[in-house]
């Protein structure tokens, strides 16, 4: 009788839990499906590789060593524990059941015991990191759910030992310390209680374990733990192509009324999947230059706010209750909205029912995400690089900007002016495009125009900064001198050059970007350009990774790549000793976007006398200078200045020179050094200027 009750209860509870689990997961699947289809999935091999590296290999997690190890124990432990779950369940129905593993029985038992023990330690360590060590990134989102996770995991793991220990007593066996050390200890400690008491305790802990497992299963997809389910798909369904490439908008449709993302369902499905995959680990916000300097933008909260909005929107559109069991969470806003939406549908079909709740939701732009946050982003990818589930915040932010710029025409006045200037004169200041070639004054012979020279191997694309900005004109001239010295045949476009469109694109003006891309590619074709070299990482990135979509076929080089190659080939010989302590600042678009970390360092190492000093955040962790994503042209009034934060990091290395390889970074860092009143003691220079000094 009791046994029948036990069996029926277990089956009922399990079926109910499975029903809830499926409902919750399917509901979120349906919500994600509200989005637009993503780009076609082609590169299956890369996707599988990603899954191996980032899911199985946990690659990103090890950026934070301690948390990485902790997570790996839980991640792999979870699978091992699952392998033993069926055995544990059957033990509740078949006395003394063990998997028929023959000679491996004991090994399996040992493995289970240690796994459980290590997982328990890992959970305690996780608890310690959050609540005792108070790791900064884990303090940004405080809610009870994180504590629930720890409690559930502790109950689930810790209950295994009493189950097995009391089972040993119940079966009248002796504790097997060799193969079941931890449960053996329990059995030994309670050996005197007798079989009857042991049987009762066995079932008590068995039930505690099963109920904990089943409740956790229902809890997981409703919390940040949803990543356990969604992250795998998130990694697999990531948008194809180079890092940070933005999907283009098709402007063919002349009747389109809406561009970018103005409503949550305008995002693509892979983007919406990002939202449910977020672990709320805070890694992104911890690395974000905007959040780090007191701006409201926080990439983690961007994700979670959008996620919660999607859940509410989904409830309204589909009438499905996202929080289960629904009766227990009747008070949640999304569940109330789902019920109201149902009532609304009945009312619409003629029933006389009252709609208990207004179905009006907060506006995506304005209420859920503010314009202030949207414009604060430098598109630096510090967040994306840190994210363990490979979320892509930048694409989301740019989609919101696209809506503001293209659909609403709403943007900071300086941004509108910048667009207008680029549109009219091809540069952000609106200086006459007929003055673009002026930077060449006095070196016309070594930097010929494309139509002045018979043949050239490289087109040197100077960029707007190199052409007009007084400080960066010096860099452009240094690059020209170096190429000339190395005997590289090159030419420049002069007044036929114009903005690459990176600023326009990252600031949301996709229309202007595509116009510029088409015109630039046309110009390249006219002059039969095969190779392009540029000193601007932004230009480099958009030419190399984004222009091919619009028909560019040329090979693209950043000046650090080409200069390093010329040194290796012996065509540039840095022989002059420079007694400098140099710290190199990695530009986002060179480093995180294009993985170029070594070429610039190798150039510096090739210069006699140069001592390289690394900043605390270098290479892929490098903090943005604050100028990317159009921020160069906007005021920075919120919080403190990003360029100062980065300059302070650079100054910590006690350098005599701060070296960069990007015109924006150079401007930002030299402004920073001036603001710190250190310009007498610390120089800020582009790598080409330093190299030129060493070869002369």
């Amino acid at each position, binding site marked *: 009788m009791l046994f029948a009750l036990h069996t029926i209860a277990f089956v009922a509870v399990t079926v109910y839990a499975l029903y809830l689990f499926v409902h919750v997961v399917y509901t979120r699947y349906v919500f994600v499906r509200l989005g637009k289809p993503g780009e076609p999935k082609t590169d299956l091999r890369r996707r599988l590789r990603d899954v191996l590296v980032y899911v199985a290999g946990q690659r990103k997690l090890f950026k934070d060593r301690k948390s990485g190890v902790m997570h790996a124990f839980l991640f792999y432990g979870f699978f091992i524990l699952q392998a033993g779950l069926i055995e544990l369940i059957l033990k509740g129905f078949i006395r003394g059941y063990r998997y028929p593993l023959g000679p491996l029985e004991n090994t399996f038992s040992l493995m289970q015991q240690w796994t459980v023990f290590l997982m328990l330690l890992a959970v305690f360590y996780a608890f310690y990191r959050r609540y005792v060590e108070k790791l900064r990134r884990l303090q940004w989102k405080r809610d009870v759910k994180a504590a629930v996770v720890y409690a559930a995991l502790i109950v689930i793991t810790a209950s295994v030992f009493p189950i097995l220990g009391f089972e040993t007593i119940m079966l009248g066996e002796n504790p097997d310390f060799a193969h079941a050390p931890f449960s053996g200890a329990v059995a030994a400690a309670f050996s005197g209680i007798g079989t009857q008491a042991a049987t009762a305790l066995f079932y008590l802990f068995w039930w505690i374990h099963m109920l904990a497992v089943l409740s956790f299963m229902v809890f997981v997809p409703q919390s940040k733990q949803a990543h356990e389910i969604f992250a795998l798909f998130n990694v697999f369904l990531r948008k194809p192509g180079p890092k940070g490439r933005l999907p283009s908008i098709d402007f063919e449709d002349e009747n389109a*009324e*809406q561009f970018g993302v103005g409503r949550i369902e305008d995002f693509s499905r892979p983007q919406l999947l990002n939202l449910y995959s977020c672990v709320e680990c805070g890694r992104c916000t911890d690395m974000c230059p905007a959040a780090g300097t007191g701006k409201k933008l926080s990439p983690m909260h961007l994700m979670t706010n959008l996620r919660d909005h999607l859940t509410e929107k989904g409830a309204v559109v589909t009438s499905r209750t996202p929080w289960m069991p629904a009766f227990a969470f009747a008070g949640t806003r999304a569940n109330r909205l789902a019920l109201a939406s149902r009532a609304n549908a009945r009312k619409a079909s003629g029933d006389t029912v009252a709609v208990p709740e207004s179905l009006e939701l907060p506006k995506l732009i304005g209420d859920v995400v503010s314009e202030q946050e949207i414009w604060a982003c430098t598109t630096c990818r510090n967040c994306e690089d840190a994210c363990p589930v490979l979320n892509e915040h930048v694409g989301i932010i740019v989609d919101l900007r696209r809506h503001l*710029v293209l659909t609403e*025409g709403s943007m900071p006045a300086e941004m509108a002016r910048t667009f207008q200037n680029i549109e009219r004169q091809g540069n952000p200041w*609106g*200086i006459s495009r*007929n003055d673009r070639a002026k930077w060449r004054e006095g070196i016309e012979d070594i930097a010929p125009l494309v139509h002045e020279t018979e043949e050239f191997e490289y087109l040197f694309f100077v960029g707007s900064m190199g052409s007009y900005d007084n400080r960066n004109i010096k860099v452009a001239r240094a690059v020209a001198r170096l190429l000339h010295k190395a005997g590289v045949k090159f030419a420049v476009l002069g007044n036929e050059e114009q903005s690459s469109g990176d600023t326009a694109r990252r600031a949301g003006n996709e229309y202007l970007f595509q116009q510029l891309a088409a015109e630039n590619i046309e110009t390249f074709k006219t002059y039969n350009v095969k190779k392009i070299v540029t000193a601007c990482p932004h230009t480099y990135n958009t030419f190399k990774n984004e222009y091919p979509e619009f028909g560019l076929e040329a090979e693209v080089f950043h000046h650090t790549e080409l200069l390093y190659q010329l040194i290796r080939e012996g065509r540039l010989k840095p022989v002059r000793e420079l007694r400098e302590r140099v710290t190199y600042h990695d530009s986002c678009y060179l480093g995180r976007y294009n993985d170029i970390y070594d070429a610039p360092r190798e150039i510096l190492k090739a210069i006699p006398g140069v001592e390289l000093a690394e900043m605390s955040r270098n290479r892929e962790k490098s903090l943005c200078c604050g100028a990317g994503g159009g921020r160069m042209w906007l005021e920075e009034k919120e919080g403190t200045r990003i360029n100062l934060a980065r300059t302070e990091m650079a100054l910590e290395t006690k350098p005599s020179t701060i070296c960069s390889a990007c015109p924006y970074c150079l401007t930002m860092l030299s402004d920073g050094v001036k603001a710190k009143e250190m310009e007498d003691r610390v120089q800020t220079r582009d790598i080409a200027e330093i190299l030129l000094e060493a070869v002369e």
Partner: protein
Amino acid sequence: MNILVLLKQTFDTEERIRIENGKISEEDVKFIINPYDEYAVEEAIRIKEEHGGEVTVVSVGPMRTESALRTALAMGADRAILVHDESLSGIEYGDEHTLSKILARVARRTGFDLILAGYMSVDSGAAQVAPRVAEELDIPHISAITGLRIEGNAVVAEKDMEGNKAVIEASLPVLLTAQQGLNEPRFPTLPNIMRAKKKPLEIWTVADLELDFGSIQPKTAVAEQYLPPPKPAGRILEGSLDSQVRELAQLLKDLIS
């Protein structure tokens, strides 16, 4: 409310002026809406958005002016009229007299409650056309306004007076010209740019307007066009303060004599 905006297309303010064969060359030049006229367009659209009505932009000039008118349509104007024909291009669109006669006639045809214009154009800079149109139409005008309120028939305009503010009241119909500071012109949205491409552009000729060609002949003639002479390099005086002052005084005396 029926709002008419007088608009001129000018060189982008950053263009460098080139003289070819004794005339300003238009080759390879970027054209824009005269910036002051852009404030007028913006203000007209804001008034429409608040009070309802229709905004008509009108220009006299060559066919290239179409792009400026389309931009105004993309910003939110409803209707665009370009006065253009061979006879007008023959006299290079005349002078302020010619333009004001034509525009006044257009205004009579379309009807209006309010006329807005830039207070001057950045190219010829005479600041005459709009006030002349007001005279031709026998309505009051307020020039170079930096603030505007319209309630019923009453118009309250603000303008800067050497750092102070003058508040001027009038009633419709009236002609107002816009000064910088009146507003921040909007950035046309893409759907509006697309829609503007499809809106009709009305081309009116002198004949359509039943104007006597003789009566709109220019009253002035351009004698010569030339660039300002290049600025001679500056000099920084050196030496003691006293000797610098003495040298400066001498230099100024030499200049006058």
